Every structure is written in structure tokens, then in C-alpha cells.
């Protein structure tokens, strides 16, 4: 069963307990100055953002068909059956294609390090593997971030939308975005007003490059026949010309 996170912006009180728990889980420093940074970075893998009267959270969406996994040339990123998208820093060569390709601009880089790593939330893969909740869900005092099976969380979100239609913008962000994500959002206002990208395609992005990549064997085989054939024709002509030249 695939795990997910449901974040309900209407319940969030902006206490940033999730940030602190996340920092602790990764062994990253956390203090007032870092808490004031309202954006994710290599030292802050989730961030609570303020958008007027509303709060929002940024974290890796752990997509169902992740763009980052498809673009990584060395397979350093992987989608686990459990749901999290995990990263193997020992494989990574630092091409940063995952960062360029991520439709949510999530992966961060340790720019100032001499041996840098990409950093991003992996939905507490180790904790969830051991049957525990993600650190952020466990820390949330008001249940704005909850963690569980994706199917059940989608049902829960639908229930909330049905029960209190006037309190919600009537959609679930992450249900179909780029083919579905493991992080789902509910909001009182349209999603772009809480800083979510609404121009992302509804289809999985890996399709865009696979359409071309799957042609490679065809291009190579057809090209070999074509070029070999042209060579054979044009040089046959040259051979004949040479022979006739000799005869004369």
C-alpha cells in the first residue's frame, strides 16, 4: 500500500513544529533564523510558508511517477513501492538534472560543499518502513499534516470537501498533478494563492522524454541500414570508375 501525506492548509496554525521535527530527523541545525526562512533549501527540507491569511507547506511531493527518478542518469533516485522517492548520494555525480527537471523545484543542492549532495524530503522512508509516521505528521499538534495510506487519505480529503464545501477550495492538489503525487493539499483558496504550481501538466512528465528515447533503437538500426546503403551505392560508383580508369 502506497503511503502519502495529507496537508490541510485550513487547519495549519503555522507553528512550524513540522520544520523542527524534520530538521531533527535529518540531523540538520534548526534555530530561529532558519525557522524564518520560508523556503526549502539543502539545510531545510520542509518549510512553512505564509501567504496572507493562509499557510502552506513545501516538501518533496514524492510523485507517483517521479520526473527526478526518470532523468537521473545514474539511477541515484528511486521510487519505492512504499511511496517515498529515495536518493543514493554515493551514486550521484552532481549533474543536477533532477533539479532542472523537477516540476515543483524541490531538489536542493549543497552549493558551498566541495563534495556536494542533492537534498530533499524522502517522506521519512526509514520511519515509514518501520511502521512509524513521518516526523512532520507526528509533530503536527493540530492534525494539519497527517500520514497514512494514500487511498485512505484521498477518501479523507474528499470527505472534508463534502462536509464543509464552504471552507474549502473544492479540489485536492496532488490527486492528478503530474500523474498524482504522494503529498496531497487542501486549501481554502485556489492553490496558486498558497504558492502551489498550477501550471504543471496532468500527465506524468517522464513520458515527454521517453517518447523520444524509445526511438533510439529504431534510429540506430534504420540509420545503419541507410548510411551503410548510401556508402555501398556511392562507393560502388567510385569502384567502377576506378576500374574503368585502369582498363583504359
Amino acid at each position, binding site marked *: 500500500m502506497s503511503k502519502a501525506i495529507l496537508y490541510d492548509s485550513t487547519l495549519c496554525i503555522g507553528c512550524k513544529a513540522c520544520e523542527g521535527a524534520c530538521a531533527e530527523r535529518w540531523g540538520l541545525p534548526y534555530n530561529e533564523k532558519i525557522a524564518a526562512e520560508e523556503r526549502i533549501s539543502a539545510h531545510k527540507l520542509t518549510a512553512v510558508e505564509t501567504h496572507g491569511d493562509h499557510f502552506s507547506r513545501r516538501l518533496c511531493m514524492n510523485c507517483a511517477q517521479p520526473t527526478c527518478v526518470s532523468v537521473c542518469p545514474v539511477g541515484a533516485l528511486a521510487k519505492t513501492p512504499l511511496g517515498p522517492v529515495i536518493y543514493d548520494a554515493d551514486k550521484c555525480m552532481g549533474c543536477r538534472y533532477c533539479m532542472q527537471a523537477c516540476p515543483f523545484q524541490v531538489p536542493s543542492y549543497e552549493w558551498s560543499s566541495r563534495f556536494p549532495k542533492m537534498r530533499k524530503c524522502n517522506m521519512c522512508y526509514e520511519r515509514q518502513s518501520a511502521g512509524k509516521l513521518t516526523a512532520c505528521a507526528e509533530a503536527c499538534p493540530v492534525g494539519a499534516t497527517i500520514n497514512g495510506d494514500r487511498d485512505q487519505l484521498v477518501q479523507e480529503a474528499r470527505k472534508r470537501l463534502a462536509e464543509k464545501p464552504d471552507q474549502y477550495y473544492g479540489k485536492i492538489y496532488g490527486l492528478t498533478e503530474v500523474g498524482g503525487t504522494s503529498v496531497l493539499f487542501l486549501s481554502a483558496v485556489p492553490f496558486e494563492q498558497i504558492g502551489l504550481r498550477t501550471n504543471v501538466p496532468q500527465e506524468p512528465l517522464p513520458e515527454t522524454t521517453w517518447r*523520444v528515447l524509445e526511438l533510439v533503437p529504431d534510429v540506430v538500426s534504420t540509420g545503419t541500414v541507410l548510411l551503410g546503403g548510401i556508402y555501398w551505392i556511392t562507393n560502388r560508383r567510385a569502384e567502377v570508375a576506378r576500374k574503368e580508369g585502369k582498363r583504359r
Partner: protein
Amino acid sequence: MTRKFPKITVWRAIFAVILLFGLYATYLRVVYGLGGSTNLSDQFPWGLWIAFDVMCGVGLAAGGFTLVAMVHIFNIERYRPILRPAILTAFLGYLLVVVGLLYDLGHPERLWHPLVMWNPHSVMFEVAWCVTLYTTVLFLEFIPVVFERFGLHKPLEWIHKISVPLMILGVLLSTLHQSSLGSLFLIVPEKLYPLWYSPILPLLFYISSIAVGLAMTIFESWHSSRAFGRALELPLLMSMARVLAVVLSLYLWIRFLDLSHRHALGLLTQNRIETWLFALEMALMIVPVVLLFQARIRSKPGSLYACAVMVVFGFIANRLNVGTTGLEAGSGTHYMPRWSEVAVTLSIVAAGFAIFRGIAQYFPIFEKHSHEHAPAEVEEKEADSVGVA
């Protein structure tokens, strides 16, 4: 060989200054990492080193496969005199692309990883394999020059035996590689500005690489004729300019069709930086096309050269737009390369010029008359160059 060096000394001074800055930038890159040497950020992870050093470097090396295809596969013999400089340019170009990558990768010591850790779903994986294999092919296409120089006949014969499959492989790898640099950006439909994002980016990258490959061949012929005081192969370059004009027209026409089918032409009425950069790019390609269709322009070395330079700059503008400026709005940030990024890039270009010059001076790259100093036996061999036995 007569050397006239008064203006070269100025160039040498510039060269030294560039290299000095480049060295300091290299120090910053090694000691302070990418953060200390570039203006890259989480929002803008690729900059000049990818957009110029890699994307333009590979494109400008396209003359290698274009001429190999013309001479060895299509058997158009008269282009043979400019085949070797084109192969040398391509070989150096690819080596310098690898140097650029070593600067840009967070872990340059893991450059070999894609060769053992596979992900065939990644365009970057395809790119990595193409760079590796094609650099090897270019090495093998170039090495006969070295064998000839030192009169090693046995290895020359060996390489002749595999030359045909080698040439075909080289053209195939280039086709894949040139197009795959465009495919890299298929994954960012919501980020890359619609004047550049297109599902046919790989095709556009491929055709424009052929055009710029031809332009680079004209460019380097002109420069080497001046540097080495040899006659310019004008009739040859004139006929090549025709091919260039046709290929570039084809490219521009497909580009227009693509924009119109995607209903993106309306964007040109918007007063945005992207519109102007697009206009610049187009001007640098349309003007030389119009000029090259006129015989009196083609027949003058100066104007022929100017057209080639315009095409090269138009190509560079296109790759920089796709690789950097076209992504700024979609990434919600601005990017201006730091001086150290520019210094490294300029150093790599300068090194390319210098190494080309050095090799062309000591190895049989150009046709006989340019090498009075070369040993006689080498000269005789030259007519029977790289490929077909």
C-alpha cells in the same frame, strides 16, 4: 613557414590574461565548490557551463560528423581537403566539453558512473554514453594523422580496415547526441518559454547542428588560411555555403511551422526580454541565409566569413536561450553568470584555439602546400587520408 606575428602578440597577451583569470576561477571552483564559483541556485541549477561549454561545444563540433558523412559516406571527394580540420575541431570540441563537464559536475570524479550505473529512461544517460563513445570514435578518426606524422604504417592499415563502420558509427552517435541535447529540455514543458519549448526540440537541435557544423568549417578554414598563410579553398567553401544556406532555410522553415502549429507566434507581440532574444537569434540566422543565397556574397572570402560567424552566433544565441534565458521566467528567478563562470568558459575556448593551432602546425592536418616543413614521406601519404582504403 613564414610567421607574421605582430598582431598575434596582442592575441597572446589576451590569451594569457584569459588563462590567468581562468586559473583563479578554477581555484575558486576546486576550493569553494560550485557555490563559490558560480551564480547557480536551487531555482537555477544549470548555467553557462552547461548552456555554452556543453551545449554549444557539442554543436560547434558538428562539422566533424557532417563532413565525415559528406566525404566518406556520400563519397563527395572534393570536400576531402577540409575533412581533417573538421575532425580535429570535433575531437578537440568533445575533449573540451568533457573539461567543461568536469567543472560543472558536483562530483567530477564520478564522471564514469553512467557507464556502469544505468538508467536508460534518462536523456542524460544517453548524453553520457554518446559523449563517451563519440569521443572515442573521434579519437580513432583523428589518430591516423599521428600515425602518418611518425610514419607508423602498420597501425594505419589496421585503422583503415575498420574505418567504414567507424565512420557510420560516428555519424549515428552524433545524430543521437546532437538531438538528445534538445531532448534534455523536453522534460520542462512548464518551465521553458514557449518560443523555445517544442516537442520537436531534438529535431531542431539536430538540423541546427548540421548548419553550424558547416559554418564552423568555413570559419576555421578562413582562420587557418590566415594563420598559416595558405590559400583559401574558396570554390569548396562557396559550394559548402550553398549547402549551409539550404540547411539553415530548412531549419528556419521547420521552426516557423512549429511555432505556428503550437500557436506560439502570438507571443512575438509581447514586449518581453524573451521576444527580443528570440528576434536576435532569428536575425543572426535569417540575415546570413538571405546573404548566402547571393553569389556575389558567397564568392568574397570576407563576406562568406561574416555569414559563417553570424550563423555561429545565431546558434550560440539559440542554445543559450534554451539553456538559460528561456528558463528564467519559468524558474521564477534571474541568472547572470559570475565572472568566474565566464573566465572558465573563455579559457576553454582559448585553449581550444591554441591546441588546434599547435596540432595543425605539427601534424598533417591541412593539404600539402601548407606544410613545407613536413617530412616528404608524410606528405605523400596525405592524399590518402583517414578513411576509405
